[in-house]
Protein backbone atom coordinates (compact mmCIF):
# COMPACT_ATOMS: atom_id res chain seq x y z
CA UNK A 1 0.00 0.00 0.00
CA UNK A 2 2.85 2.36 0.83
CA UNK A 3 4.41 1.74 -2.57
CA UNK A 4 1.15 2.57 -4.34
CA UNK A 5 0.75 5.84 -2.51
CA UNK A 6 4.36 6.64 -3.33
CA UNK A 7 3.55 6.74 -7.04
CA UNK A 8 0.68 9.13 -6.56
CA UNK A 9 2.63 11.33 -4.17
CA UNK A 10 5.53 11.63 -6.61
CA UNK A 11 3.11 12.40 -9.44
CA UNK A 12 1.45 15.15 -7.39
CA UNK A 13 4.80 16.74 -6.52
CA UNK A 14 5.81 16.70 -10.18
CA UNK A 15 2.46 18.15 -11.24
CA UNK A 16 2.95 21.01 -8.80
CA UNK A 17 6.44 21.58 -10.15
CA UNK A 18 5.14 21.56 -13.71
CA UNK A 19 2.38 24.01 -12.83
CA UNK A 20 4.91 26.34 -11.24
CA UNK A 21 7.15 26.19 -14.30
CA UNK A 22 4.27 26.94 -16.67
CA UNK A 23 2.73 29.72 -14.55
CA UNK A 24 6.00 31.38 -13.57
CA UNK A 25 7.69 30.79 -16.91
CA UNK A 26 9.57 34.11 -16.76
CA UNK A 27 11.12 33.22 -13.42
CA UNK A 28 11.90 29.72 -14.66
CA UNK A 29 13.61 31.31 -17.64
CA UNK A 30 15.70 33.63 -15.54
CA UNK A 31 16.86 30.75 -13.39
CA UNK A 32 17.97 28.94 -16.54
CA UNK A 33 19.77 32.09 -17.75
CA UNK A 34 21.82 32.07 -14.63
CA UNK A 35 23.35 28.68 -15.49
CA UNK A 36 23.27 28.46 -19.27
CA UNK A 37 24.30 30.77 -22.08
CA UNK A 38 21.72 32.08 -24.51
CA UNK A 39 21.61 34.29 -27.57
CA UNK A 40 17.89 34.88 -27.61
CA UNK A 41 16.22 38.05 -26.45
CA UNK A 42 13.27 37.68 -24.13
CA UNK A 43 9.85 39.21 -24.58
CA UNK A 44 9.09 38.45 -28.17
CA UNK A 45 8.22 34.80 -27.74
CA UNK A 46 4.89 33.04 -27.39
CA UNK A 47 4.21 32.28 -23.72
CA UNK A 48 5.22 28.81 -22.49
CA UNK A 49 1.59 28.16 -21.54
CA UNK A 50 0.51 28.22 -25.19
CA UNK A 51 3.13 25.66 -26.25
CA UNK A 52 2.31 23.60 -23.22
CA UNK A 53 -1.40 23.61 -24.09
CA UNK A 54 -0.70 22.65 -27.71
CA UNK A 55 1.55 19.85 -26.58
CA UNK A 56 -0.92 18.37 -24.10
CA UNK A 57 -3.75 18.66 -26.62
CA UNK A 58 -1.74 16.90 -29.31
CA UNK A 59 -0.74 14.08 -26.94
CA UNK A 60 -4.24 13.76 -25.56
CA UNK A 61 -6.01 13.59 -28.92
CA UNK A 62 -3.51 11.22 -30.49
CA UNK A 63 -3.47 8.98 -27.41
CA UNK A 64 -7.25 8.72 -27.16
CA UNK A 65 -7.47 7.81 -30.84
CA UNK A 66 -4.56 5.38 -30.58
CA UNK A 67 -5.97 3.64 -27.50
CA UNK A 68 -9.39 3.34 -29.15
CA UNK A 69 -8.11 1.95 -32.42
CA UNK A 70 -5.30 -0.07 -30.83
CA UNK A 71 -7.48 -1.89 -28.32
CA UNK A 72 -10.12 -2.52 -30.98
CA UNK A 73 -7.69 -3.84 -33.57
CA UNK A 74 -5.81 -5.86 -30.95
CA UNK A 75 -8.95 -7.55 -29.66
CA UNK A 76 -10.12 -8.25 -33.19
CA UNK A 77 -6.81 -9.93 -34.01
CA UNK A 78 -7.29 -12.37 -31.11
CA UNK A 79 -10.75 -13.47 -32.24
CA UNK A 80 -11.46 -16.32 -34.60
CA UNK A 81 -12.44 -13.89 -37.35
CA UNK A 82 -9.16 -12.02 -37.03
CA UNK A 83 -6.98 -15.10 -36.73
CA UNK A 84 -5.32 -14.81 -40.12
CA UNK A 85 -4.37 -11.17 -39.53
CA UNK A 86 -2.73 -11.89 -36.21
CA UNK A 87 0.74 -13.00 -37.23
CA UNK A 88 1.28 -10.41 -40.00
CA UNK A 89 -0.10 -7.70 -37.72
CA UNK A 90 2.27 -8.64 -34.91
CA UNK A 91 5.19 -8.57 -37.34
CA UNK A 92 4.24 -5.14 -38.64
CA UNK A 93 3.77 -3.55 -35.23
CA UNK A 94 6.92 -5.17 -33.95
CA UNK A 95 8.99 -3.81 -36.82
CA UNK A 96 7.12 -0.51 -36.72
CA UNK A 97 8.27 0.09 -33.17
CA UNK A 98 11.85 -0.01 -34.40
CA UNK A 99 11.12 2.61 -37.04
CA UNK A 100 12.60 5.94 -35.89
CA UNK A 101 9.92 8.42 -34.87
CA UNK A 102 11.56 11.45 -36.59
CA UNK A 103 11.54 9.51 -39.84
CA UNK A 104 7.88 8.67 -39.42
CA UNK A 105 7.03 12.33 -38.81
CA UNK A 106 9.12 13.40 -41.78
CA UNK A 107 7.29 10.86 -43.96
CA UNK A 108 3.95 12.23 -42.81
CA UNK A 109 4.64 15.66 -44.31
CA UNK A 110 4.79 14.81 -48.01
CA UNK A 111 1.79 12.50 -47.63
CA UNK A 112 -0.42 14.47 -45.29
CA UNK A 113 0.93 17.96 -45.61
CA UNK A 114 2.64 20.38 -43.28
CA UNK A 115 1.04 21.07 -39.89
CA UNK A 116 -1.11 19.72 -37.11
CA UNK A 117 -3.03 16.94 -38.92
CA UNK A 118 0.04 15.27 -40.33
CA UNK A 119 1.79 15.29 -36.97
CA UNK A 120 -1.30 14.00 -35.23
CA UNK A 121 -1.69 11.05 -37.58
CA UNK A 122 1.98 10.17 -37.31
CA UNK A 123 1.70 10.22 -33.52
CA UNK A 124 -1.39 8.01 -33.60
CA UNK A 125 0.34 5.49 -35.85
CA UNK A 126 3.40 5.46 -33.65
CA UNK A 127 1.41 5.05 -30.42
CA UNK A 128 -0.74 2.33 -31.96
CA UNK A 129 2.07 -0.14 -32.23
CA UNK A 130 2.89 -0.89 -28.59
CA UNK A 131 -0.82 -0.85 -27.77
CA UNK A 132 -1.81 -3.36 -30.47
CA UNK A 133 1.16 -5.54 -29.66
CA UNK A 134 0.41 -5.70 -25.95
CA UNK A 135 -3.33 -6.24 -26.41
CA UNK A 136 -2.71 -9.21 -28.71
CA UNK A 137 0.05 -10.74 -26.61
CA UNK A 138 -1.75 -10.05 -23.33
CA UNK A 139 -4.90 -11.79 -24.47
CA UNK A 140 -2.99 -14.67 -26.03
CA UNK A 141 -1.14 -15.23 -22.79
CA UNK A 142 -4.30 -15.78 -20.76
CA UNK A 143 -3.83 -19.38 -19.56
CA UNK A 144 -5.45 -21.85 -21.93
CA UNK A 145 -6.96 -23.93 -19.16
CA UNK A 146 -8.71 -20.88 -17.71
CA UNK A 147 -10.21 -20.08 -21.10
CA UNK A 148 -11.12 -23.74 -21.56
CA UNK A 149 -12.90 -23.82 -18.21
CA UNK A 150 -14.77 -20.61 -19.03
CA UNK A 151 -15.99 -21.93 -22.39
CA UNK A 152 -16.88 -25.23 -20.76
CA UNK A 153 -19.06 -23.37 -18.27
CA UNK A 154 -21.09 -21.88 -21.09
CA UNK A 155 -19.72 -18.38 -21.54
CA UNK A 156 -20.49 -16.72 -24.87
CA UNK A 157 -17.51 -15.25 -26.77
CA UNK A 158 -18.52 -11.79 -25.54
CA UNK A 159 -18.74 -12.90 -21.90
CA UNK A 160 -15.42 -14.67 -22.28
CA UNK A 161 -13.73 -11.40 -23.29
CA UNK A 162 -15.53 -9.28 -20.75
CA UNK A 163 -15.18 -11.51 -17.71
CA UNK A 164 -12.02 -13.48 -18.37
CA UNK A 165 -9.71 -12.46 -21.20
CA UNK A 166 -9.64 -8.69 -20.84
CA UNK A 167 -9.47 -8.61 -17.03
CA UNK A 168 -6.63 -11.13 -17.09
CA UNK A 169 -4.79 -9.28 -19.87
CA UNK A 170 -5.36 -5.86 -18.35
CA UNK A 171 -1.93 -5.64 -16.78
CA UNK A 172 -0.19 -6.22 -20.11
CA UNK A 173 -2.63 -3.98 -22.00
CA UNK A 174 -2.09 -1.09 -19.58
CA UNK A 175 1.64 -1.66 -19.89
CA UNK A 176 1.33 -1.12 -23.63
CA UNK A 177 -0.72 2.03 -23.17
CA UNK A 178 1.86 3.32 -20.70
CA UNK A 179 4.70 2.78 -23.17
CA UNK A 180 2.67 4.38 -25.96
CA UNK A 181 1.86 7.48 -23.95
CA UNK A 182 5.36 8.06 -22.70
CA UNK A 183 6.75 7.66 -26.22
CA UNK A 184 4.00 9.92 -27.50
CA UNK A 185 4.80 12.74 -25.11
CA UNK A 186 8.41 12.87 -26.24
CA UNK A 187 7.66 12.15 -29.91
CA UNK A 188 5.24 15.08 -29.93
CA UNK A 189 8.29 17.30 -29.44
CA UNK A 190 9.33 16.46 -32.99
CA UNK A 191 5.93 17.52 -34.28
CA UNK A 192 7.22 21.08 -34.08
CA UNK A 193 9.56 20.26 -36.93
CA UNK A 194 6.57 19.72 -39.20
CA UNK A 195 4.88 22.89 -37.97
CA UNK A 196 2.44 21.41 -35.48
CA UNK A 197 3.49 23.55 -32.50
CA UNK A 198 3.91 22.31 -28.96
CA UNK A 199 6.84 22.43 -26.60
CA UNK A 200 8.96 21.05 -29.41
CA UNK A 201 9.02 24.50 -30.98
CA UNK A 202 11.33 25.64 -28.17
CA UNK A 203 13.52 22.58 -28.51
CA UNK A 204 13.75 22.76 -32.29
CA UNK A 205 14.51 26.50 -32.27
CA UNK A 206 16.97 26.01 -29.46
CA UNK A 207 18.82 23.30 -31.34
CA UNK A 208 18.90 25.44 -34.46
CA UNK A 209 20.41 28.43 -32.59
CA UNK A 210 22.51 26.47 -30.07
CA UNK A 211 20.41 28.03 -27.32
CA UNK A 212 20.58 25.89 -24.17
CA UNK A 213 17.91 27.87 -22.33
CA UNK A 214 15.38 27.40 -25.10
CA UNK A 215 16.09 23.69 -25.34
CA UNK A 216 15.69 23.18 -21.61
CA UNK A 217 12.56 25.33 -21.46
CA UNK A 218 10.94 22.85 -23.81
CA UNK A 219 12.66 19.66 -22.69
CA UNK A 220 12.15 19.95 -18.95
CA UNK A 221 8.32 20.21 -19.01
CA UNK A 222 8.17 17.39 -21.57
CA UNK A 223 10.26 15.14 -19.35
CA UNK A 224 8.20 15.94 -16.27
CA UNK A 225 4.99 15.23 -18.18
CA UNK A 226 6.29 11.87 -19.31
CA UNK A 227 7.31 10.91 -15.80
CA UNK A 228 3.91 11.95 -14.40
CA UNK A 229 2.06 9.85 -16.97
CA UNK A 230 4.39 6.95 -16.29
CA UNK A 231 3.74 7.14 -12.55
CA UNK A 232 -0.02 7.49 -12.87
CA UNK A 233 -0.41 4.63 -15.32
CA UNK A 234 1.85 2.43 -13.25
CA UNK A 235 -0.45 3.10 -10.34
CA UNK A 236 -3.51 2.35 -12.45
CA UNK A 237 -1.88 -0.89 -13.56
CA UNK A 238 -1.19 -1.93 -9.97
CA UNK A 239 -4.74 -1.16 -8.90
CA UNK A 240 -6.72 -2.47 -11.85
CA UNK A 241 -4.92 -5.71 -12.60
CA UNK A 242 -5.47 -8.64 -10.28
Amino acid sequence: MRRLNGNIFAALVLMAALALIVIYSREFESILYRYFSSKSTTGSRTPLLVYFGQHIWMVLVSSVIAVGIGVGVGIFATTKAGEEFREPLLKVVNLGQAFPSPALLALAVPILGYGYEGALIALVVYALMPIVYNVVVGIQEVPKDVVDAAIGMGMTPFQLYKKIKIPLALNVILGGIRTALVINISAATLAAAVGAGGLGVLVVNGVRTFDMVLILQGAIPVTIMAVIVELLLKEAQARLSF
Partner: protein
Amino acid sequence: MIEMQNVTKSYGDFKAVDNLSLHVDRGELLVILGPSGCGKSTTLRLMNKMAERTSGTIKIKDKEIDSFVEEDLRKGIGYVIQSIGLFPHMNVWKNIATVPQLLGWEEKKIDKRVEELLLLVGLDPEKYKDKKPSQLSGGEAQRVGVARALASDPDILLMDEPFGAVDPINRLRLQKEFRQIQRRLQKTVVFVTHDIDEAILLGDRICIMNHGKVVSLDTPEKVVLHSEDDFVDSFFKGEGILTILSRKNAEDYMEGIPWEGAEIPQDATLKEALSQMLLTGDDRVSVKDGSISFNRILQVVGRDINEKA
Protein backbone atom coordinates in the same frame (compact mmCIF):
# COMPACT_ATOMS: atom_id res chain seq x y z
CA MET B 1 -28.75 -39.59 -20.19
CA ILE B 2 -25.88 -39.49 -22.67
CA GLU B 3 -25.86 -41.54 -25.81
CA MET B 4 -23.20 -41.69 -28.49
CA GLN B 5 -23.71 -43.70 -31.64
CA ASN B 6 -20.99 -44.39 -34.19
CA VAL B 7 -19.27 -41.14 -33.32
CA THR B 8 -16.06 -40.27 -35.11
CA LYS B 9 -13.85 -37.26 -34.60
CA SER B 10 -11.04 -36.81 -37.11
CA TYR B 11 -8.25 -34.29 -37.23
CA GLY B 12 -7.18 -34.55 -40.85
CA ASP B 13 -6.36 -38.20 -41.41
CA PHE B 14 -6.04 -38.95 -37.73
CA LYS B 15 -9.11 -40.38 -36.05
CA ALA B 16 -9.01 -39.29 -32.41
CA VAL B 17 -12.33 -41.01 -31.79
CA ASP B 18 -13.17 -43.86 -34.13
CA ASN B 19 -16.76 -45.02 -34.60
CA LEU B 20 -17.45 -44.99 -30.88
CA SER B 21 -20.77 -45.95 -29.32
CA LEU B 22 -21.61 -45.79 -25.64
CA HIS B 23 -24.37 -44.71 -23.33
CA VAL B 24 -24.38 -43.39 -19.79
CA ASP B 25 -27.39 -44.01 -17.58
CA ARG B 26 -28.92 -41.50 -15.21
CA GLY B 27 -27.04 -41.42 -11.91
CA GLU B 28 -24.24 -43.59 -13.24
CA LEU B 29 -20.53 -42.89 -12.89
CA LEU B 30 -18.82 -44.02 -16.06
CA VAL B 31 -15.04 -43.95 -16.06
CA ILE B 32 -13.23 -43.70 -19.38
CA LEU B 33 -9.80 -45.21 -18.89
CA GLY B 34 -6.92 -45.39 -21.30
CA PRO B 35 -3.35 -44.35 -22.11
CA SER B 36 -2.51 -40.81 -23.22
CA GLY B 37 -3.69 -40.06 -26.71
CA CYS B 38 -6.33 -42.78 -26.76
CA GLY B 39 -9.09 -40.27 -27.39
CA LYS B 40 -10.65 -40.27 -23.92
CA SER B 41 -10.51 -36.51 -23.39
CA THR B 42 -11.79 -35.88 -26.90
CA THR B 43 -14.71 -38.22 -26.21
CA LEU B 44 -15.53 -36.15 -23.13
CA ARG B 45 -15.26 -32.88 -25.03
CA LEU B 46 -17.62 -34.17 -27.69
CA MET B 47 -20.29 -34.45 -25.00
CA ASN B 48 -20.38 -30.71 -24.26
CA LYS B 49 -19.49 -29.63 -27.78
CA MET B 50 -16.06 -28.37 -26.80
CA ALA B 51 -15.10 -30.53 -29.76
CA GLU B 52 -17.30 -30.95 -32.80
CA ARG B 53 -17.85 -34.53 -33.98
CA THR B 54 -17.06 -35.41 -37.57
CA SER B 55 -19.85 -37.95 -37.87
CA GLY B 56 -22.29 -39.95 -35.78
CA THR B 57 -25.04 -38.93 -33.37
CA ILE B 58 -24.84 -37.73 -29.79
CA LYS B 59 -27.91 -37.37 -27.60
CA ILE B 60 -27.97 -35.56 -24.28
CA LYS B 61 -31.07 -36.13 -22.15
CA ASP B 62 -32.72 -37.77 -25.15
CA LYS B 63 -32.21 -34.69 -27.29
CA GLU B 64 -30.00 -34.48 -30.33
CA ILE B 65 -26.91 -32.47 -29.28
CA ASP B 66 -27.21 -30.07 -32.21
CA SER B 67 -30.66 -28.99 -31.05
CA PHE B 68 -29.10 -27.20 -28.06
CA VAL B 69 -27.66 -23.70 -28.14
CA GLU B 70 -24.00 -24.49 -27.39
CA GLU B 71 -23.72 -22.17 -24.41
CA ASP B 72 -26.98 -23.39 -22.89
CA LEU B 73 -25.89 -26.98 -23.26
CA ARG B 74 -22.66 -26.24 -21.38
CA LYS B 75 -24.40 -24.29 -18.63
CA GLY B 76 -26.38 -27.45 -17.93
CA ILE B 77 -23.31 -29.68 -17.72
CA GLY B 78 -20.67 -29.37 -15.01
CA TYR B 79 -17.13 -29.49 -16.37
CA VAL B 80 -13.95 -30.08 -14.37
CA ILE B 81 -10.49 -30.27 -15.94
CA GLN B 82 -7.18 -31.45 -14.57
CA SER B 83 -5.64 -28.01 -14.23
CA ILE B 84 -8.98 -26.90 -12.73
CA GLY B 85 -8.83 -23.57 -14.54
CA LEU B 86 -10.00 -21.51 -11.58
CA PHE B 87 -10.23 -17.87 -12.60
CA PRO B 88 -7.17 -16.33 -10.91
CA HIS B 89 -8.64 -12.81 -10.75
CA MET B 90 -11.78 -13.91 -8.93
CA ASN B 91 -12.12 -15.09 -5.35
CA VAL B 92 -13.57 -18.48 -4.46
CA TRP B 93 -17.08 -17.06 -4.11
CA LYS B 94 -17.04 -15.51 -7.56
CA ASN B 95 -15.50 -18.61 -9.12
CA ILE B 96 -18.27 -20.82 -7.78
CA ALA B 97 -20.91 -18.20 -8.62
CA THR B 98 -19.90 -18.03 -12.29
CA VAL B 99 -22.59 -20.21 -13.84
CA PRO B 100 -25.39 -19.04 -11.49
CA GLN B 101 -24.47 -15.48 -12.45
CA LEU B 102 -24.53 -16.36 -16.14
CA LEU B 103 -27.97 -17.84 -15.52
CA GLY B 104 -29.06 -14.63 -13.82
CA TRP B 105 -29.78 -15.98 -10.35
CA GLU B 106 -30.52 -13.55 -7.52
CA GLU B 107 -27.59 -12.60 -5.32
CA LYS B 108 -29.23 -14.12 -2.23
CA LYS B 109 -29.83 -17.45 -3.89
CA ILE B 110 -26.23 -17.53 -5.17
CA ASP B 111 -24.92 -16.71 -1.71
CA LYS B 112 -26.82 -19.60 -0.21
CA ARG B 113 -25.74 -21.96 -2.96
CA VAL B 114 -22.05 -21.07 -2.64
CA GLU B 115 -22.14 -21.70 1.09
CA GLU B 116 -23.93 -25.01 0.57
CA LEU B 117 -21.40 -26.14 -2.01
CA LEU B 118 -18.37 -25.18 0.04
CA LEU B 119 -19.74 -27.23 2.93
CA LEU B 120 -20.42 -30.11 0.54
CA VAL B 121 -16.80 -30.24 -0.61
CA GLY B 122 -15.57 -29.86 2.95
CA LEU B 123 -14.37 -26.26 3.02
CA ASP B 124 -15.41 -23.74 5.67
CA PRO B 125 -17.35 -21.04 3.76
CA GLU B 126 -16.34 -18.19 6.07
CA LYS B 127 -12.68 -19.08 5.79
CA TYR B 128 -12.56 -19.77 2.07
CA LYS B 129 -15.08 -17.70 0.14
CA ASP B 130 -12.93 -14.57 -0.01
CA LYS B 131 -9.67 -16.34 -0.85
CA LYS B 132 -8.04 -16.02 -4.24
CA PRO B 133 -7.11 -19.23 -6.09
CA SER B 134 -3.42 -18.45 -5.55
CA GLN B 135 -4.00 -18.79 -1.81
CA LEU B 136 -5.33 -22.33 -2.09
CA SER B 137 -3.45 -25.63 -1.93
CA GLY B 138 -3.81 -28.05 -4.82
CA GLY B 139 -6.41 -30.14 -3.00
CA GLU B 140 -8.41 -27.08 -1.92
CA ALA B 141 -8.37 -25.69 -5.44
CA GLN B 142 -9.65 -29.01 -6.77
CA ARG B 143 -12.48 -28.97 -4.23
CA VAL B 144 -13.43 -25.48 -5.35
CA GLY B 145 -13.30 -26.72 -8.95
CA VAL B 146 -15.78 -29.48 -8.12
CA ALA B 147 -18.01 -27.03 -6.22
CA ARG B 148 -17.94 -24.67 -9.19
CA ALA B 149 -18.97 -27.44 -11.57
CA LEU B 150 -21.89 -28.35 -9.29
CA ALA B 151 -23.00 -24.74 -8.82
CA SER B 152 -26.09 -24.73 -11.01
CA ASP B 153 -27.00 -28.26 -9.90
CA PRO B 154 -26.46 -29.81 -13.34
CA ASP B 155 -27.63 -33.37 -13.95
CA ILE B 156 -24.45 -34.22 -15.78
CA LEU B 157 -20.84 -33.80 -14.69
CA LEU B 158 -17.91 -34.22 -17.07
CA MET B 159 -14.55 -34.62 -15.35
CA ASP B 160 -11.24 -34.77 -17.18
CA GLU B 161 -8.56 -36.20 -14.86
CA PRO B 162 -9.83 -33.92 -12.10
CA PHE B 163 -7.52 -35.28 -9.41
CA GLY B 164 -4.50 -35.80 -11.65
CA ALA B 165 -2.52 -32.86 -10.31
CA VAL B 166 -3.10 -33.61 -6.62
CA ASP B 167 -0.53 -35.44 -4.49
CA PRO B 168 -1.28 -39.17 -3.89
CA ILE B 169 -2.39 -38.83 -0.27
CA ASN B 170 -4.84 -36.05 -0.97
CA ARG B 171 -5.91 -37.72 -4.17
CA LEU B 172 -7.17 -40.81 -2.37
CA ARG B 173 -9.07 -38.63 0.10
CA LEU B 174 -10.60 -36.57 -2.69
CA GLN B 175 -11.56 -39.73 -4.57
CA LYS B 176 -13.28 -41.21 -1.54
CA GLU B 177 -15.06 -37.95 -0.78
CA PHE B 178 -16.12 -37.53 -4.37
CA ARG B 179 -17.57 -41.01 -4.44
CA GLN B 180 -19.62 -40.13 -1.36
CA ILE B 181 -20.82 -36.89 -2.93
CA GLN B 182 -21.75 -38.62 -6.17
CA ARG B 183 -23.72 -41.30 -4.34
CA ARG B 184 -25.57 -38.66 -2.36
CA LEU B 185 -26.38 -36.37 -5.31
CA GLN B 186 -26.93 -39.10 -7.90
CA LYS B 187 -25.32 -37.10 -10.67
CA THR B 188 -24.59 -38.65 -14.00
CA VAL B 189 -20.82 -38.50 -14.23
CA VAL B 190 -18.36 -39.20 -17.01
CA PHE B 191 -14.90 -39.36 -15.51
CA VAL B 192 -11.77 -39.53 -17.64
CA THR B 193 -8.56 -40.85 -16.13
CA HIS B 194 -5.42 -42.85 -16.89
CA ASP B 195 -5.13 -43.95 -13.28
CA ILE B 196 -6.29 -47.58 -13.02
CA ASP B 197 -6.81 -47.52 -9.26
CA GLU B 198 -8.91 -44.40 -9.57
CA ALA B 199 -11.01 -45.96 -12.31
CA ILE B 200 -11.72 -49.12 -10.33
CA LEU B 201 -12.36 -47.23 -7.12
CA LEU B 202 -14.87 -44.78 -8.60
CA GLY B 203 -16.50 -46.36 -11.62
CA ASP B 204 -19.91 -48.00 -11.74
CA ARG B 205 -18.76 -49.06 -15.17
CA ILE B 206 -15.39 -48.67 -16.83
CA CYS B 207 -14.88 -47.97 -20.50
CA ILE B 208 -11.36 -48.80 -21.64
CA MET B 209 -10.25 -46.98 -24.76
CA ASN B 210 -7.31 -47.42 -27.09
CA HIS B 211 -6.63 -45.77 -30.45
CA GLY B 212 -9.98 -43.99 -30.37
CA LYS B 213 -11.99 -47.18 -29.93
CA VAL B 214 -13.75 -48.83 -27.01
CA VAL B 215 -11.80 -51.94 -26.07
CA SER B 216 -13.91 -52.96 -23.12
CA LEU B 217 -16.96 -51.53 -21.38
CA ASP B 218 -18.34 -53.16 -18.25
CA THR B 219 -18.39 -53.17 -14.46
CA PRO B 220 -14.94 -52.96 -12.85
CA GLU B 221 -15.20 -56.55 -11.60
CA LYS B 222 -15.95 -57.90 -15.03
CA VAL B 223 -13.43 -55.75 -16.83
CA VAL B 224 -10.66 -56.71 -14.46
CA LEU B 225 -11.42 -60.35 -13.82
CA HIS B 226 -12.90 -61.51 -17.06
CA SER B 227 -11.17 -59.61 -19.75
CA GLU B 228 -10.69 -61.39 -23.01
CA ASP B 229 -8.50 -58.70 -24.41
CA ASP B 230 -4.70 -58.64 -24.26
CA PHE B 231 -4.59 -54.85 -24.13
CA VAL B 232 -6.88 -54.80 -21.10
CA ASP B 233 -4.86 -57.54 -19.41
CA SER B 234 -1.63 -55.68 -20.02
CA PHE B 235 -3.25 -52.61 -18.56
CA PHE B 236 -4.03 -54.23 -15.21
CA LYS B 237 -0.92 -56.44 -15.10
CA GLY B 238 -2.80 -58.93 -12.97
CA GLU B 239 -3.03 -56.58 -10.00
CA GLY B 240 -6.52 -55.37 -10.72
CA ILE B 241 -7.95 -57.74 -8.16
CA LEU B 242 -6.24 -55.79 -5.36
CA THR B 243 -7.87 -52.62 -6.54
CA ILE B 244 -11.24 -54.32 -6.74
CA LEU B 245 -10.81 -54.98 -3.01
CA SER B 246 -10.42 -51.24 -2.49
CA ARG B 247 -14.01 -50.79 -3.69
CA LYS B 248 -15.31 -52.76 -0.73
CA ASN B 249 -15.64 -51.38 2.76
CA ALA B 250 -14.20 -53.78 5.33
CA GLU B 251 -16.99 -52.91 7.71
CA ASP B 252 -19.59 -54.36 5.33
CA TYR B 253 -17.99 -57.80 5.49
CA MET B 254 -17.18 -57.72 9.19
CA GLU B 255 -17.70 -60.88 11.23
CA GLY B 256 -18.95 -60.64 14.79
CA ILE B 257 -15.82 -62.25 16.18
CA PRO B 258 -13.84 -59.97 18.50
CA TRP B 259 -10.10 -59.90 17.85
CA GLU B 260 -7.36 -58.61 20.08
CA GLY B 261 -4.73 -58.11 17.38
CA ALA B 262 -4.07 -55.22 14.98
CA GLU B 263 -6.93 -52.88 14.19
CA ILE B 264 -7.85 -50.99 11.00
CA PRO B 265 -9.86 -47.76 10.84
CA GLN B 266 -13.63 -47.94 10.55
CA ASP B 267 -13.71 -46.63 6.97
CA ALA B 268 -10.92 -48.96 5.79
CA THR B 269 -11.36 -51.07 2.67
CA LEU B 270 -10.77 -54.75 2.17
CA LYS B 271 -7.48 -53.89 0.47
CA GLU B 272 -6.31 -52.14 3.61
CA ALA B 273 -7.47 -55.10 5.69
CA LEU B 274 -5.44 -57.46 3.50
CA SER B 275 -2.38 -55.21 3.71
CA GLN B 276 -2.67 -55.18 7.47
CA MET B 277 -2.75 -58.98 7.52
CA LEU B 278 0.38 -59.15 5.38
CA LEU B 279 2.08 -56.71 7.74
CA THR B 280 1.18 -58.46 10.98
CA GLY B 281 1.33 -62.02 9.68
CA ASP B 282 -2.02 -62.79 11.32
CA ASP B 283 -4.91 -63.97 9.18
CA ARG B 284 -7.39 -61.71 10.98
CA VAL B 285 -7.65 -58.00 11.75
CA SER B 286 -9.99 -56.13 14.06
CA VAL B 287 -12.54 -53.69 12.63
CA LYS B 288 -14.85 -51.66 14.85
CA ASP B 289 -16.16 -54.19 17.41
CA GLY B 290 -15.75 -57.21 15.17
CA SER B 291 -13.05 -58.51 12.88
CA ILE B 292 -12.40 -59.78 9.40
CA SER B 293 -10.43 -62.84 8.33
CA PHE B 294 -8.32 -63.74 5.33
CA ASN B 295 -10.78 -66.49 4.43
CA ARG B 296 -13.56 -63.97 4.42
CA ILE B 297 -11.69 -61.91 1.84
CA LEU B 298 -11.10 -64.99 -0.31
CA GLN B 299 -14.79 -65.69 -0.05
CA VAL B 300 -15.68 -62.17 -1.20
CA VAL B 301 -13.32 -62.39 -4.13
CA GLY B 302 -14.65 -65.82 -5.04
CA ARG B 303 -18.20 -64.59 -4.88
CA ASP B 304 -17.39 -61.62 -7.10
CA ILE B 305 -15.94 -63.94 -9.64
CA ASN B 306 -18.89 -66.32 -9.48
CA GLU B 307 -21.41 -63.54 -9.47
CA LYS B 308 -20.12 -61.99 -12.65
CA ALA B 309 -19.08 -65.18 -14.46
